[in-house]
């Protein structure tokens, strides 16, 4: 009796193991896939469905919330991805650490035709030969302010140091974005590596801390829409979303300068589906697809065909949605400053935050 039960159990386990194997083998057979690792909520799900329908390539999508969480997963080889969408300085860091492969632009006709010249030129600050990256989204950083509660026109970063806005200011919670502002006020580069200048920037942030309401990342949208603060430092894409929700707000890029940021598609060096990866990137550059993504995201697109395709007139005419890239052509983009400098920036930011 006892042995019979044991025998039955063995058969059960055996069959389970077999079916399990069968499933995984089948999964491996359909190798027509592309592994994409992108920012959270950075692609309209509809676009992915269309891509799968048209090409028969299955998209396996993972998401990250900062460049810094993405980097170790790719660098340590924990998971293999084909296509990633890092920001400017991170593209440079990944090139420097030999994690990317050059793109074959013969397979990217849409990218050649529809991605604006200006953006490839700006990309050269982190991808000198335009070999590795295709711009996907871009934007600036500026001040979002409540027109009804802020009397002056905040076209200078220095307004963020004004005592009368105590507890009404939201700042970005990241080392580079935070230090960029005092560096710009001092007329320095936001890729500054001179430690004296950086320490001065840190001191300015420490001085500003008592009047700051909070250091925020994504929460900035909710806090501004609900009117928690009169002004905040936001990315231009977020600015459009906030303005559509709460028309009291306006967005201005201060005259001292800003960060011209670009998130780009890249292909990893260890990519196993290189051909599919190119197809995916090219699909994202197709104007009818780019406009769907743009409507979903609100971030400015480097795709020159999108503005004419945009149906909503208010958005089509909005300088926040479609800023003229030439206006920003003199602006800097973040560069990768090396591991030691990265740590120096982070340590300065830590000093501000514990103060």
């Amino acid at each position, binding site marked *: 009796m006892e042995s019979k039960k044991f025998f039955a159990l063995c058969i059960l386990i055996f069959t389970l193991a077999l079916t399990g194997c069968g499933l995984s083998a089948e999964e491996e057979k359909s190798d027509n896939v592309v592994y994409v690792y992108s920012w959270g909520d950075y692609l309209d799900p509809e676009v992915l469905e269309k891509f799968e329908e048209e090409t028969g390539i299955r998209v396996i999508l993972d998401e990250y919330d*900062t460049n*810094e*969480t993405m*980097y*170790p997963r790719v660098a340590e080889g924990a998971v293999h991805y084909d296509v990633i969408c890092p920001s400017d300085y991170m593209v440079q860091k990944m090139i420097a650490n030999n994690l990317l492969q050059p793109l074959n632009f013969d397979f990217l006709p849409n990218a050649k035709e529809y991605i604006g010249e200006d953006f490839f030129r700006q990309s050269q600050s982190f991808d000198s030969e335009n070999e590795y990256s295709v711009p996907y989204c871009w934007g600036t950083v500026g001040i979002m302010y409540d027109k009804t509660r802020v009397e002056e026109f905040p076209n200078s970063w220095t307004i963020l140091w004004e005592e009368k806005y105590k*507890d009404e200011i939201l700042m970005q*919670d*990241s*080392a580079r974005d935070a230090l960029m502002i005092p560096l710009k006020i001092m007329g320095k580069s936001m890729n500054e590596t001179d430690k004296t200048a950086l320490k001065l920037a840190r001191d300015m942030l420490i001085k500003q*801390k008592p009047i*700051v*309401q*909070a*250091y*925020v990342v994504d929460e900035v949208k909710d806090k501004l829409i*609900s*009117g*928690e603060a009169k002004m905040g430092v936001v990315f231009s894409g977020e600015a459009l979303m906030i303005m559509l929700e709460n028309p009291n707000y306006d967005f201005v890029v201060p005259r001292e300068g800003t960060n011209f940021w670009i998130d780009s598609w890249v292909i990893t060096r260890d990519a196993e589906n290189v051909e599919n990866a190119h197809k995916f990137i090219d699909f994202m550059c197709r104007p009818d697809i780019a406009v769907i993504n743009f409507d979903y995201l609100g971030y400015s697109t480097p795709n020159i065909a999108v503005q004419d395709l945009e149906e909503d007139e208010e958005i089509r005419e909005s300088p926040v949605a479609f800023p003229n890239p030439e206006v920003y052509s003199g602006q800097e983009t973040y560069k990768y400053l090396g591991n030691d400098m*990265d*740590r120096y920036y*982070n*340590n300065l930011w*830590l*000093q501000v*935050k*514990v103060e």
Partner: protein
Amino acid sequence: MFKSAGVKTLFMTPFCLWAGIFIFVPLLCMIWYGLTNDDEIFTPANLTLAFEPPYFKALLLSIGLALVSTIICLLLAYPLCLILTDKARDLSTAVSLLFILPLWMNSLLLTMAWQTILEKNGIINQVLRYFNLPDVALINTPTAIIIGMVYNFLPYMVLPLYVSLSKIDKRIIEAARDLGASYMQTFWKVILPLSLPGAAGGMTMVFIPALTTFVISALLGGGKLLLIGNVIEQEFIAGYNWHWGAGLSMVLMIFILINMAVTIFFDNSHEEVEEK
């Protein structure tokens, strides 16, 4: 069936495997990272880092806030548990259910709820404005973090305390009263000493998560108050410096071990009392 050694081993294996893979190996990895630098050379530098200015400040703030919230939890939980063990059963199940209920919800959601309560335009201030009272600035202050900690961790204080109080034999209390001890004397000399292990257990269970939290301080502190948990998170993620992060985590573990040693000490002294 369970008495045979072979079967025992068989049933122990899954747990031992689990503990080995998911507790022991990660701990070793952390110690490895904590004791080496980028060039994989052994160094104690990551450990002494915790006593350098910005890190030490965060550590002190964490210990301070964790202590305060532990004491508040104890002061809130003790009377409640006394009432629960004293009164009729039907009431106690309802009240303890109320305390366990929040545990069924994700603590992140609970903390975000507190954010909307404490905010400048939050519920508290809107109520105050309705009565024409001045606003209170709670969000992004140490007070807000303590409120969040107490709310999140109070059940962990209530449960062990309730168990240890309800284990006290009612006849011992009756005997004390019978021998002429006043209610206060009974409390100080009988109930309190017998409940110490529960209190110590509860304090550990509140102090440790409060010391290591980074979610509560991030959501209710507005990024302006940095606890050691936030610093470690920042070293691992934004800084991509696993050696420093692991070193700081090891220092934090020392504090946790001290705390546990205190608990064990209380447990043992209690057993001695019982043996007498």
